[in-house]
């Protein structure tokens, strides 16, 4: 049955108590804002009536209009005009497809919504069909690995982690890694991510460093992450980003001792020169290039001459050299 066939179904005034307002078998909405929708309903009413499914159960299941119904509920409405379909005129699979296409054509899905859609579609369709036809519609590369990942996101993650993923606070690559961990390790890692407010890049580095450290030290990832979680980074008065940077610096020092020591030594060398703030000396990433660079900010030739003289006279400048040689 095509959606156009449902337009002719006469809307009924439904008591909101009769509707199962929770994540049902067709829903794919998670972490949404109702403010704008409430204002729209306040001005225009509900233009597009929700579709419900009556399986002769105690409650009516939402096919589409989950947000509208939630908004109506929070506006204190008790009844709402809805179109009600029954198994005589639509199958559950068609209900799901209907809601999917209605949503995908009008808005972006967050990762949890994508996972919800994929898991629900997988209950009715073959894996290959979901992979090849639906993953690209969701902006996901069509692979078996991605299909399995999103199914696990929907089934294995607890709500607090799901919320962070939906908000984009944890990148999908990190979630993929978390899903491969045992529950305890995953929870410890989540605690670190939230506790230190790590950004996406720091989260990826955290996983990379801890995995490597586990291999180097011959201990389990759980042990490494457990130790990091209990780490005293010694900056009580620092704000969250500062604490995050301190943690990552400490971890980097453990993972890359020679490089970290060289970088620190180079910083000390430069600091000792006591150059003015308009003069900067830097190295290529990881000292891979044989050269260092000098940057001078100046307003005119007189100032440039003055800066050059300061550099020339800087005590110990001739000793500046490869910090990794010491």
């Amino acid at each position, binding site marked *: 049955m095509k959606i156009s066939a449902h337009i002719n179904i006469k809307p009924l005034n439904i008591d909101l108590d009769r509707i199962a307002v929770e994540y049902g078998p067709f829903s794919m909405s998670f972490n949404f804002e109702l403010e704008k929708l409430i204002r729209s309903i306040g001005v225009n009413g509900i233009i597009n009536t929700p579709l419900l499914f009556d399986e002769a159960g105690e409650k009516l299941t939402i096919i589409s209009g989950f947000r509208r119904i939630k908004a109506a509920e929070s506006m204190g409405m008790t009844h709402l005009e809805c179109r009600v379909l029954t198994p005589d005129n639509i199958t559950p699979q068609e209900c799901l497809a209907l809601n999917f296409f209605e949503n995908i054509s009008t808005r972006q899905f967050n990762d949890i919504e994508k996972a919800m859609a994929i898991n629900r579609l997988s209950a009715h369709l073959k894996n290959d069909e979901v992979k090849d036809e639906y993953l690209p519609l969701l902006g996901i590369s069509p*692979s*078996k*690995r991605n299909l399995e990942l999103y199914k696990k996101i929907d089934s294995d993650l607890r709500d607090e982690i799901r919320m962070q993923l939906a908000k984009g606070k944890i990148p999908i690559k990190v979630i993929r890694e978390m899903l491969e961990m045992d529950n305890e390790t995953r929870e410890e890692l989540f605690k670190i991510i939230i506790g230190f407010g790590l950004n996406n890049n720091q989260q990826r580095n955290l996983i990379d460093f801890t*995995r*490597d450290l586990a*291999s*180097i030290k011959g201990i389990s990832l759980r042990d490494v992450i457990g130790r990091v979680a209990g780490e005293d980074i010694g900056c009580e008065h620092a704000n969250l980003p500062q604490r995050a940077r301190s943690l990552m610096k400490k971890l980097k020092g453990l*993972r*890359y*001792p*020679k*490089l970290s020591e*060289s970088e620190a030594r180079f910083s000390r060398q430069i600091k000792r020169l006591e150059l003015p703030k308009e003069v900067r000396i830097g190295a290529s*990433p*990881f*000292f*891979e*290039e*044989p050269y260092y660079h000098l940057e001078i900010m100046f307003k005119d030739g007189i100032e440039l001459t003055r800066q050059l003289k300061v550099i020339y006279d800087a005590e110990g400048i001739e000793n500046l050299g490869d910090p*990794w*040689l010491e």
Partner: protein
Amino acid sequence: MAKKVIKRVLVEDGTRHHEMTGRILGQVEGLNILDIGRDEATFDMEHGCKMGKDTMHLLSYRGEFLKPCPGTKNYICCGYQILNVATNCPIDCSYCILQSYFNQPNLRVFVNLEEELEGVLAFIDSNPQKIFRVGTGEFTDSLAIDSITGWSDLLIPSFSKRKNAVLELKTKTTEIRDVLDSPFRDRIIISWSLNSPFITSREEHRASGLKQRLKAAQICQQDGYVVGFHFDPLIVHPGWKNGYLRTIEMMEKYLDPERIIWISLGSMRYIPSLKEIIRKRHPGTCILDGEFVQGLDGKMRYFKPIRMELYRFMRENLEKWHPRLGLYLCMESDEIWSRTMGWSPTDSDGLKAFLDGRVMEIFG
């Protein structure tokens, strides 16, 4: 080794008429042989741990057979030429770059080689002023399946006749029977990849043991072949200095240094996407434990002082054995060359000239 490893053969549509197909199928009687359509073998390998190492896939290669080694940007490369006879490898080294070629599984053997070889040789002949250092061991092991493919039978006579080319057959095996049966020796180099005993036994799965490789090299040398060696990748691991010393001591025991054309040194490096694959396919590997940083070519490589320590150590100890072994660095910078080798070819042209010089010195 070959016949034990290969469990089935896929024959791609349109390849039965090649003579090489017939010869190969004659060698694998009794195995499961399947005819398949073009591109049918690109089955789903996504991060699966299998790479089809037990499946030989016979197909026609539609690209250029002889290509310059892609090398790497911003580092000095040697100007090597790759003769692309096959891709993928029955050996399963944890560090192998081929693991990232998952979209093309199986041991892909190009059965139109014989027909295309004429063009390759004509190209070499049309550039008499240039020395072609050609190898088949970049995208596969040159000898691991030689008893099935007959590559050495086909290639050695053609290259041995040419004054402006050498053919290097690079391996981690002891599959030298067909090579030894060949009456040709001139302009042919049989090479082995070497490592410490620890890395060899732990990270080079299905490869021959170190001692066996060196004994095979000894046999080849004694039978008149020039040999080469490649310490690539050098890997920092517990007791690495002692490990590499042991390998050098074994070389001293089995080999005549005068009949070694070159020994390359290259430290462990990898494209960033390979790390995840290695962790999945080889849990427990130690090859990723070092301090890797992103190099100027985007590949991960050891932090500079670590690379320098590796190269210096190898150079000092190899040169204690013999001062003229044709030592060179693979994909390194002018700075590293100068600081570790005592000289630098300055750029890729310089390194090419050095290695061409070794060819002239050894083969005339």
